[in-house]
């Protein structure tokens, strides 16, 4: 068995296109997932039943079904109910974003609940409304505690982005498949893709460890 990475290096262009696709869907899902997650998390935290129950149903449904099933549902099933078709990017981004929103909602809720009631009392004593207290007092402190969990979510989103290849969205793994089938070099092609993901993700993972240690020391 002789390893020959020349056939992979000859396709650097294709891998760059794939990397751009991976970064694009990662960015979309990160922004959509984490911001929608905050909305759903606030809904879960709310006492109002009309906010609490829909948010809870959303979280339970998206946390308790596989993300690949969600993506395939958005790609194959949803267009039947709509007057237009759904692109691979849209289907994958929808599935991954909603799934991440459900998981991050629980992080936000946990973070907000972890703030001592005294902080609320203090904010109210200063005459702040609920919204003001949440925005200026509670969330800034909660966000600090949530950072490691949210960074972990970002890493999960990056890994999940490979599932977009199942609906033929052009990202790194999809390009790896293409290179492997055109050059008959699955060993080198898939090893290269694995190494690229590792190089992207390893610093992020180390950063999370560092954050966890820092936070563990300060709180």
């Amino acid at each position, binding site marked *: 068995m002789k390893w020959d990475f020349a056939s992979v290096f000859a396709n650097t262009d294709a891998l760059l296109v794939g990397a751009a696709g991976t970064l694009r869907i990662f960015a979309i899902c990160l922004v959509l997932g984490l911001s929608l997650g905050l909305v759903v998390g606030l809904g879960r935290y709310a006492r109002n039943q009309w906010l609490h129950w829909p948010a809870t149903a959303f979280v339970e449904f998206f946390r308790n079904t*596989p993300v690949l*099933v969600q993506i395939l549902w958005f790609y194959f099933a949803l267009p039947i109910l709509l007057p237009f078709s759904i692109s691979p990017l849209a289907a994958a981004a929808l599935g991954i974003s909603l799934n991440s929103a459900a998981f991050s909602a629980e992080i936000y809720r946990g973070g907000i609940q972890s703030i001592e009631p005294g902080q609320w009392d203090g904010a109210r004593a200063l005459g702040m409304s609920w919204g003001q207290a949440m925005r200026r007092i509670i969330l800034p402190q909660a966000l600090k505690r949530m950072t490691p969990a949210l960074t972990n979510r970002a890493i999960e989103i990056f890994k999940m982005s490979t599932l977009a290849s199942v609906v033929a969205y052009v990202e790194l793994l999809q390009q*790896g498949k293409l290179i492997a089938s055109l050059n008959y070099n699955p060993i080198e092609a898939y090893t290269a893709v694995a190494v690229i993901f590792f190089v992207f993700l390893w610093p992020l993972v180390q950063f999370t460890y560092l954050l966890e240690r820092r936070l563990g020391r300060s709180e």
Partner: protein
Amino acid sequence: MSYRWDFTPVLASSALLAEGLVNTLKVTGVALACGLVIGLALALMRLSRHQLASWPAGFVIEVFRTTPPLVQLFWFFFALPLIVGIEMTPFMAAAVTFSIQSAAFFAEVFRAGIQSIERGQWDGARAIGMTNAQAMQRIILPQAVKRMIPAFMERAIELMKTTTLVATISYADLLFAANEVSQKSFRPLETYTVVALIYFVVIFAASQLSRLLELRLARSGESTVH
């Protein structure tokens, strides 16, 4: 809405879907069992003072935790058979990938659990003449495992969701059965909705069970690790 839902083609394929669910549970069970055993070995190696044991274990854990599961699965299915020269069935590739992958995650749970046990327990075991291995086996692990139960359950549930990836290498799990039924019946909406609900019922039940266990452990005053 003008669309008329028709679940009869999906119901007619319930045998196929049931078989798919059994295969999903099979691959989850095998990966879980192997993952626990390999995970304990990796954790003990990583905690070892010998660099020759701790470094390779650390490497395996880091690689499998920081690369996407689908890339791992493709590597084991398409690349590994060419390197070692043996045929890999989709089931074998899936079992190997998810066993090592969950072992990497379980190893960190084991490590956290073992490290959470107070030093006094080690001292006590040594004081009554136990070797390190005896202390680990009889004193430390039994206490640590109890604290790890919620984390194990959580990981097992994640594993079950991740096994849907095996459909991409044509292992006949529940999702693969869904793809087939959907294509044959031209009823993707009904098929994927039903299959999503099946996953939901199974995984939701497992999540509730895990929550119940965690509550019970918390009530008995046991601390847990994550």
